[in-house]
């Protein structure tokens, strides 16, 4: 089990490659290695900024200074206040809807035929292309942004949950039946815990996709929040501020994924702790 969790972590880490050491690294490695990896990354960034690679590429130190500047003048807080609302709403809705829908499809043939093909198409499609359409239908408000998060996050969550539920350990199902488990008990006590590693892999990918969705929406639909802060600083050629904003959302995304993994191990798969 521990092996598959680690690979899932790697897959999720791809979404935020600059910080992958935080999610991708195995947990039993000494913290020193992780710090070295971060320091190495910062060092290369600093050197690349000093060469400079491009006049629009700030050094690491300038970016850190800009980051604290953005924190101090409150613009980062204001931006996050506006970005986090549709993001959290969209991700939470996608998680509940996606896991429920995926579970139903995994358990019920008809549901599988009705629902799964739609999500297979959605997962294959470049869904970002739908975002202008969402704007056209729902305007430029909170609804459109939440929907943008959901159309990116939902398919992978539904499909992973569906696959996990479908491939649940047959012998545990028989065991539950032989000890007189009801259908509800079988779902709650066997199917969901057994499927949880794959469901959580889907959730991590879904949450990462949700971050993509909200930033896309803010760049394409409504110039608000983080998307607006990025666009604004780019237009004023404040590249350090722009990179600080981008780095901050990547860091937030990574921290969210790490938190999700912590919840998974803590609540659902205690046996993989420290394994």
């Amino acid at each position, binding site marked *: 089990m521990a092996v598959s969790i680690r690979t899932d972590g790697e897959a999720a880490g791809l979404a935020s490659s600059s910080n992958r050491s935080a999610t991708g690294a195995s947990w039993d490695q000494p913290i020193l290695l992780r710090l070295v990896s971060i320091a190495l990354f910062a060092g290369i960034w600093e050197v690349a900024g000093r060469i400079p690679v491009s006049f629009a590429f700030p050094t690491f130190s300038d970016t850190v200074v800009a980051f604290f500047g953005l924190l101090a003048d409150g613009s980062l807080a204001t931006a996050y206040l506006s970005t986090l609302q549709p993001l959290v709403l969209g991700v939470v809705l996608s998680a509940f809807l996606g896991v429920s829908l995926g579970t139903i499809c995994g358990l019920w043939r008809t549901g599988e035929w009705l629902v799964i093909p739609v999500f297979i198409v959605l997962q294959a499609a470049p869904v970002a292309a739908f975002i202008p359409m969402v704007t056209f239908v729902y305007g430029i408000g909170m609804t459109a942004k939440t929907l943008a998060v959901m159309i990116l996050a939902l398919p992978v969550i539904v499909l992973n949950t569906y696959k996990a539920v479908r491939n649940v350990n047959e012998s545990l199902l028989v065991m539950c*039946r*032989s000890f007189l*488990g009801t259908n509800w008990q079988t779902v709650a006590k066997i199917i969901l815990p057994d499927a*949880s590693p794959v469901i959580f892999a889907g959730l991590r990918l879904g949450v990462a996709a949700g971050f993509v969705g909200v930033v896309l929406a803010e760049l394409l639909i409504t110039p608000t929040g983080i998307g607006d802060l990025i666009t604004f600083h780019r237009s004023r050629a404040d590249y350090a501020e722009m990179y600080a904003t981008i780095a901050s959302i990547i860091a937030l995304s990574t921290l969210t994924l790490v938190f999700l993994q912590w919840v998974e191990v803590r609540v659902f798969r205690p046996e993989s702790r420290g394994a």
Partner: protein
Amino acid sequence: MGATALRNGPSPVPAPIDSIVEVRGISKTYGNVEALRGIDLDFPRGKLTSLLGPSGCGKTTLLKIIAGLIRADGGTVAINGKRVSAPGPERAFVFQDFALMPWATVTRNVAFGLELRGTNKAEREEIARRYIAEVGLAGFEDKYPHELSGGMRQRVGLARALSVDADVLLLDEPFSAVDEQNRRKFQEDLIRLRTNQNKTFIFVTHSIEEAVYISDRIVLLSPRPGRVSQIIEPEIDRSGDPERIHRDRHYLDTVDEIWQGLKQYVE
């Protein structure tokens, strides 16, 4: 024949006085393979009966039909005189592949049958602890299955089946995934456990030695279609040192006798 009682022929054996499980005319077909044909069997209360036969004789299928996990095409199974077709509280199953929840501790796994029945946590953990000690796993209550050896995992499976206090324990080749040394130790423990617990055991195995070593009664099944070919009651004294049974003359004679009978089915 010595002290070994032998009853030959496929004809139904006269029912013993007190049989807890009665199997009548059970048949089962998978596609065009006839797994079982007209099985009539009685399992005496408080005894250990083995279902023994080469692979393909339908012994596991028969056990799972008795457990209510597989539906028979024809015939009936009665437990304590009541017809059953689904799992029930009077039967508990021990699985060949252990079927332990990897995310649950030994205690939760053992208490799982009681958890499903709605027994409160304190009470079921108390019961679980007792049976964990009974199967020799005291001190491992908070371990997870992956931290245990194969033999220990099956002890957890056995403790889980014991803890629901069923009258009949159904064991499906419980030692086949356990290494040889652990199997020997486990078999000895099973003999001891059987005298402590007043339960009926139905035990599926493909090992002649194992069947003769632990059983009061051995039902020999022949393959294609699966039918009862012989019922043997080895009369071996198991009260003393379990090690001595392996050198017992009746034990050795019975093993040899069964082998002579089964030889024809081995290609």
